[in-house]
């Protein structure tokens, strides 16, 4: 194994772990599609970054953070369902992104390109992953209590709105990290699929979080290795690996 492959596997494992862990909350909050749709918002950010010669991960992050604040504000101040809002945001930004992205870079922006991952990207992924784990662990109880009962959470003085904003921002970070890997169209899969797989197999929170994280890592690592071996694109290989785990999990389901 060459050094470059080891580096890619490490970065992939970090992205897989972070998206799996964060996704485990998203699935319980029944916000799976939010993660998916948010990933498309990254496209205009990447486009602008490419045009001005900045790092696409940063471009994606800026676009995602703006969109996150937008969705959070509107879902608190508007009668429209968050899911519908997300749908509007997503189609709008995908269209803008498609217009803005320089044609030669479009395929890479949409589906990612693992060979383009630099050392700097690796460092950003490491820092982002650490931040995600630290902050998520700190808000996890409040976040989950809000899932079980908003009233109960509020009666314990939990500021649900603030917790939700922090959480959505973390999702923005994880999507930005995954974008170079899997592209804007497929990053959402890594937030949803490992978590759904883990949910089928878990009875307690601990096993759920651990399995979700584990399936995230396993999908990324196995997917990259498969892509290398068969000379196929890494994004689809990673996503399809995670989906293979999901299908297999049906046979081991805990009722």
């Amino acid at each position, binding site marked *: 194994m060459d050094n470059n492959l080891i580096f890619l596997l490490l970065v992939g494992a970090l992205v897989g772990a972070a998206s799996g862990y964060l996704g485990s909350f998203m699935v*319980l909050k029944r916000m799976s599609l939010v993660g998916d749709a948010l990933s498309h918002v990254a496209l205009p950010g990447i486009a602008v970054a490419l045009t001005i010669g900045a790092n696409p991960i940063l471009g994606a992050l800026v676009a995602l953070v703006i969109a996150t604040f937008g969705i959070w504000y509107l879902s608190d101040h508007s009668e429209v369902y968050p899911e519908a809002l997300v749908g509007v945001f997503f189609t709008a930004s995908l269209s803008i992104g498609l217009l803005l992205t320089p044609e030669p870079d479009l395929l890479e922006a949409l589906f990612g390109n693992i060979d383009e991952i630099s050392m700097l990207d690796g460092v950003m992924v490491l820092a982002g992953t650490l931040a995600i784990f630290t902050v998520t662990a700190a808000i996890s*109880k*409040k976040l*989950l*209590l809000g899932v*079980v*009962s908003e*009233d*109960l959470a*509020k*009666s*314990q003085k939990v500021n649900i709105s603030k917790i939700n904003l922090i959480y959505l921002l973390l999702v923005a970070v994880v999507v930005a990290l995954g974008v170079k890997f899997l592209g804007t169209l497929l990053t959402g899969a890594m937030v949803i699929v490992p978590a759904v797989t*883990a*949910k089928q197999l*878990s*009875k*307690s*929170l*601990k*096993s*759920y979080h651990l399995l979700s994280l584990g399936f995230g890592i396993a999908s990324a690592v196995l997917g990259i290795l498969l892509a290398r071996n068969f000379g196929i694109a890494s994004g689809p290989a990673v996503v399809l690996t995670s989906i293979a785990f999901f299908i297999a999990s049906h046979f081991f389901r805990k009722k």
Partner: protein
Amino acid sequence: MEPKPNILTVSGLRVEFDNHVILEDIGFEVVRDDTLAIIGPNGAGKSVLFRALLGLIPFTGKVEWAEDAKIGYVPQKLAVAKDLPLTVNDFFHFKEKKQAKIYEVIRSVGFLEQAKHLHNDKRVLNTRMGDLSGGELQRVLIAYALLGKPNVLLFDEPTAGIDVTGEETIYDLIHKLQAEDDLTIIFISHELQVVNHYANNVLCLNKEKISFGPPMTVVSRETLAKLYGEDVHLHKHEELTPHKHPEEHNHG
């Protein structure tokens, strides 16, 4: 500092949603260590009153809790998805880190005593929330409210959706809790016989306060007629029940 006699003082409370008045001019006082029942027909605004007391919804008027009031809230029901990977123990850990405290609290709601029960004692802790029966879930919610030693308990219809034996267990439990020092209990109910047994004071509610005071003086034919309509009967054994079942037609 002098101890305040009232743990809760409410005056001129008004709640409206979308220009629709739900509660108007509600005022009452709860003395420390008392048990207050809030009764009224469906849609009278009982749960809304609770939500206002907890500060969950906007209102005008005054809701004043004593400075040291520590509220434990038992919601009416909790829709827990069956496949939610959350055990009872996970749920308790949202509020309490120490496992010993959790054991203590599940014992106090009677999970240990029912040794023959399928989910007794520690086993209940490893059960998924979605797999609990209605009565078990209610006791888990009471235990959750008791964590952190509150001095006020708010129960929203403690026995809604629970079978008769489960109901008795819950009220036995409430009765036991009444014996505790400095524990004020406020509960919503539509079962008048329960109110007579357990409450020191009753608040009859139907959008506005209809009457307030000890059960014997408040729960009269007139207030009930005002509260539920004329179709309420005073039964033998001085049991008061809103008219619900067809077989009770012969009474009255």
